[in-house]
Structure formats: C-alpha cells, structure tokens
C-alpha cells in the first residue's frame, strides 16, 4: 500500500519560460535511466532479494516516485502556458501532435518508455550492481541536464536530484556489503 503526500519532496521553481528544457527533462521521466525506470526496478526486485535489503529497496523505490513527481512538475510548469507555436519552436511540435499538453513517458529523443530498460535477474549481487549502475547513470543524466539549463532555480532542483543519486548509490553498495556477510557465511536470513 502507498499513501500519497500532498507535497513535493523538494521545492521546484522554474523562473524562465523555456519550453525547450521540457524536451530534455523528459529524459528523466520516461528515459532508460529515469525516475520511472528506477522506481519500477527497485520495487520489482524486492520480492526476490534477501530480507535484509527489502526495506532499502522499498524505501529507495518509493523515494524515486517523489523524484518522478518533481520532474513532472518541471515539465508541467515549462509547457502549460506555451502556445502550440511556442511548443513547435521548442522542438515539441511532434509531441503536441500526439499528446497536446499531456506528459508522456518517453525520453528526450521521443522514444516511448519500455520495460526492457530494466532487468531483474533474481541474483541479489547482479541485481544490486544493476541498481548501483542505474544510480550512477541517473547522476550523469542530471549533470548533462544541468549543463543544458541556464535557469538557476531549475538547476537548483536538478542538483538536489543529482545528489540523491549519490546517496542511493552509497546505500546500494552498502547493501552489497551486507549480503557479502563475511562473518557469518553459513548464516541463514
């Protein structure tokens, strides 16, 4: 069960009307290393991971949905008041033709989200290494998005999201250490 909380995890402020940025930001909405992929990956893996790290996968997976909502907020604010002409100039004409002002789960190049972005091997070490890689790739994506942005307020929210990936990676690597379980190799949990 999940309980919705009527607030963002971190304030999202967009100061410049630059709909083109929405086209890039959507990468973290429906892209391979985006927040949707992250949430679905962790929440799916938790059914077949040793009990010791189920809590971590559940909590990080849940936090990813809060990040997805932050990205959606950025895209929403950047596009909601734009005219079709402005969207066209921003390279969002194709998007408008199919989706109007609706958000859609696709990446910056317009490719629809596919579940083949994520894996579940059922091997705890393999799965956690995928998670660590996913966090580093998401961190890198945020770096490139910060590079593409000149709105300092938007950069501020993106920097927050980037740092979260640093922490998630840290925790997943700790999970690997926990599962190595040097001291009690015969222990069952």
């Amino acid at each position: 069960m999940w309980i919705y909380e009527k607030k963002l995890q971190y304030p999202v402020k967009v100061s410049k009307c630059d709909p083109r940025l929405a086209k890039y930001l959507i990468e973290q909405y429906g892209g391979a290393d985006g927040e949707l992929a992250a949430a679905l990956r962790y929440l799916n893996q938790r059914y077949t991971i040793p009990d010791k790290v189920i809590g971590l996968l559940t909590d990080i997976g849940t936090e990813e949905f809060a990040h997805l909502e932050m990205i959606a907020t950025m895209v929403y604010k950047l596009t909601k008041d734009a005219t079709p002409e402005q969207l066209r100039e921003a390279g969002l004409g194709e998007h408008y033709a199919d989706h109007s002002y609706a958000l859609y789960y696709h990446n910056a190049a317009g490719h629809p989200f596919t579940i083949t972005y994520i894996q579940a091997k059922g091997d705890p070490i393999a799965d956690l290494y995928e998670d660590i890689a996913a966090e580093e790739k998401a961190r890198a994506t945020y770096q490139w998005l910060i590079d593409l942005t000149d709105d300092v307020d938007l950069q501020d929210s993106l920097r927050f999201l980037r740092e979260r990936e640093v922490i998630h990676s840290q925790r997943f690597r700790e999970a690997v250490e926990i599962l190595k379980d040097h001291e009690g190799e015969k222990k069952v949990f």
Partner: protein
Amino acid sequence: MTHHPMPKEYYRLLYELQAVDFVLVELTLYLDTHPDDTQALHEFHQYQRRKQGLTQQFEQAFGPLHEFGNSPVGARWTWAESPWPWQV
C-alpha cells in the same frame, strides 16, 4: 476551489516541513543499512517529534497532507481541493 495564490505562510511552513521530512528520509535509508546505530535511531525519534508538530500546524492552516484517513479532516472535505503540489 481555491484560485487565489497561496499565502507566504504556506510556502514557509511547507519548506520547514520539507526540511524535517528530508532528514527523516535520509535517516530512514541510513538506518536500513545501519539498523544498530542507536544514535541515528535517537535522532530519528527527535525529528519525528518535530515532524508531528509541523504537520499539525500545516494541516490546521492548509488542509490534509495525507489521503485515506491518515490526516485529520475538518467538517468540510478539502482533500481534493487545489492546489496540488505541481501547481504551487
């Protein structure tokens, strides 16, 4: 429907709550991999108390934060009213 802009106080209280909630998120993930760190657990308790106070303050002024009966509701149903988080 509220269609007038939210007062400054809304943003101030929200930010206070976001700060305390963020510490709780960080401590949660930390405790997931460090369940025996009693000092961190102690801090978690402290921030949880601060969260309770702030949540109460916020909800009294601006309505419920959590759905499905997890926040007090007044005599009028305001949960489904704007603004939603992405609108403010």
